[in-house]
C-alpha cells in the first residue's frame, strides 16, 4: 500500500451498500484557533493572513483546505477488489462564510443577510450541479462545539458528492414508492397533515411551513418544507427565497431563546440529485437536528441509534413544538 501525506479515497461498505470517505489529512485541520487567528475572518492590514485576503466581504465561498472530496483527487492508496471496491474521492467541498463578523451566528444576522445566503446557496447548487462528476449537492451547517465544529466563525459547507448519499437515497425511494401508491407527493402530504393537525406546527408564511415532524428523532428536530411542490432551490421565485429567509430567521431565533444559549444544530438541505434523473416526485425541504434535549443535557447517538439505526426520542414532538412555537417572533 502506498503511503501518502494526503490519503483520500472512497471505500465501499458491502454490509450497508454505501460509500465512505477516508481523508487522513483532515486529522491536521485547524481546531478551534485562538482569537485573532480565525482563518475565516477578513485579513486585517498587516495581520495574520487568513483564507480571505479581502478586508471585508459580504458572503464568501471557497474550496475547503481540508476536503474530504476534491475535483482532482489522488489515486486510492489501496487496491480495489470485488469485495472491497475503492474509487478516487472525487467531488467538491466548499466553505460558505456567512459574515465577516466572527462573533455572529446565522440567527443573529438580519433577514436580508439570510436572504443573500439563500441566493448564494441557489447559485452554488446550480453551478456545482453542472460538474460532470457531481451527482448530489449537499448544503449543510454544523453549528456549535456540541456538534464538533472546529471553527466557530459563522459558516456552512457544501459537499458535492459523486453519488447520491444513502440517507437521501432512502428519502427518494420512500417518496417514489408513495407516489406510485397514491399518485401524490409524500412531502406535500406530510406538510399538509402537519398543518391540518396543528400540534407540531412551529411557523408558517406564504411559501413555507416549519414543524417538528410526527416522527422526530431529536427533541427539537425541525423541518422546513416548501408549500409549493418544488425539488430544488433554483425553482423558487424571489418572493419564495425571501420567505425562506424569513422562516429560517424565525426558527433560528426561537432555537436560541429556548434555553437562552446559542443553540447548536446540524442544518441540512435536501434537494433533488444532480445526476440528470427525473425526481418530480421529490420535494425540497430543510431539516435541523439539534442535539440539546434540555438546558443541560445533550441527546447522544448511543447503541440503539448507532448500532441498530433506531432512534429513541425522550420527548414528544407535540410538546416540543409548543415550546418552540412560544418563541416564534415576526420579522419584517
Amino acid at each position, binding site marked *: 500500500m502506498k503511503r501518502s501525506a494526503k490519503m483520500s479515497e472512497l471505500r465501499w461498505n458491502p454490509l450497508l451498500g454505501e460509500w465512505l470517505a477516508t481523508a487522513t489529512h483532515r486529522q491536521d485541520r485547524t481546531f478551534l484557533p485562538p482569537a485573532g487567528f480565525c482563518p475565516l475572518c477578513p485579513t486585517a492590514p498587516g495581520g495574520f*493572513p487568513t*483564507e*480571505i*485576503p*479581502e478586508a471585508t*466581504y*459580504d*458572503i*464568501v*465561498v*471557497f*474550496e475547503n*483546505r481540508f476536503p474530504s472530496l476534491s475535483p482532482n483527487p489522488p489515486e486510492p492508496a489501496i487496491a480495489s477488489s470485488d469485495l472491497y471496491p475503492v474509487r478516487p474521492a472525487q467531488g467538491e467541498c466548499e466553505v460558505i462564510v456567512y*459574515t465577516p463578523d466572527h462573533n455572529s451566528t446565522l*440567527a*443573529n*444576522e*438580519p*433577514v*436580508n*443577510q439570510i*436572504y*443573500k445566503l439563500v*441566493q*448564494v446557496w441557489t*447559485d452554488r447548487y446550480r453551478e456545482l450541479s453542472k460538474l460532470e462528476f457531481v451527482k448530489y449537492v449537499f448544503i449543510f451547517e454544523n453549528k456549535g462545539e456540541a456538534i464538533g465544529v472546529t471553527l466557530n466563525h459563522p459558516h456552512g459547507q457544501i459537499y458535492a458528492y459523486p453519488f447520491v448519499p444513502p440517507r437521501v437515497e432512502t428519502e427518494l425511494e420512500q417518496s417514489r414508492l408513495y407516489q406510485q401508491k397514491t399518485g401524490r407527493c409524500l412531502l406535500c402530504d406530510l406538510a399538509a397533515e402537519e398543518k391540518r393537525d396543528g400540534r407540531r406546527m412551529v411557523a408558517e408564511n*406564504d411559501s413555507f411551513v416549519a414543524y417538528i415532524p410526527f416522527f422526530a428523532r431529536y427533541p427539537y428536530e425541525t423541518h422546513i418544507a416548501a408549500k409549493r411542490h418544488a425539488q430544488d432551490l433554483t425553482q423558487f*421565485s*424571489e*418572493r419564495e427565497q*425571501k420567505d425562506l429567509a424569513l422562516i429560517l*430567521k424565525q426558527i433560528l*431565533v426561537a432555537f436560541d431563546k429556548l434555553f437562552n444559549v446559542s443553540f447548536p444544530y446540524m442544518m441540512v438541505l435536501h434537494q433533488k440529485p444532480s445526476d440528470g434523473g427525473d425526481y418530480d416526485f421529490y420535494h425540497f425541504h430543510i431539516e435541523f437536528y439539534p442535539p440539546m434535549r434540555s438546558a443541560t443535557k445533550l441527546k447522544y447517538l448511543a447503541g440503539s441509534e448507532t448500532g441498530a439505526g433506531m432512534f429513541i426520542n425522550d420527548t414528544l414532538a407535540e410538546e416540543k413544538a409548543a415550546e418552540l412555537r412560544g418563541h416564534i*417572533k*415576526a*420579522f*419584517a
Partner: protein
Amino acid sequence: MKDDKSDTGEMHKRREKMADERRYIIYYTFETGEKSRTETADEEERKDV
C-alpha cells in the same frame, strides 16, 4: 405577488485563485449590501408580537 431584489440588490460574484494558487474563492456582493449588513436583529423585530 411582487418579486424584486430591492432588499439586497443584484447579486454579483467574483472568482479568484486563493493564495495557494490551487483553490478558488468566490466573493459574493450585493449592490445594497452594506446597508443590510448594518441592520440588527433587534431593529428588525416587530414590537407588536
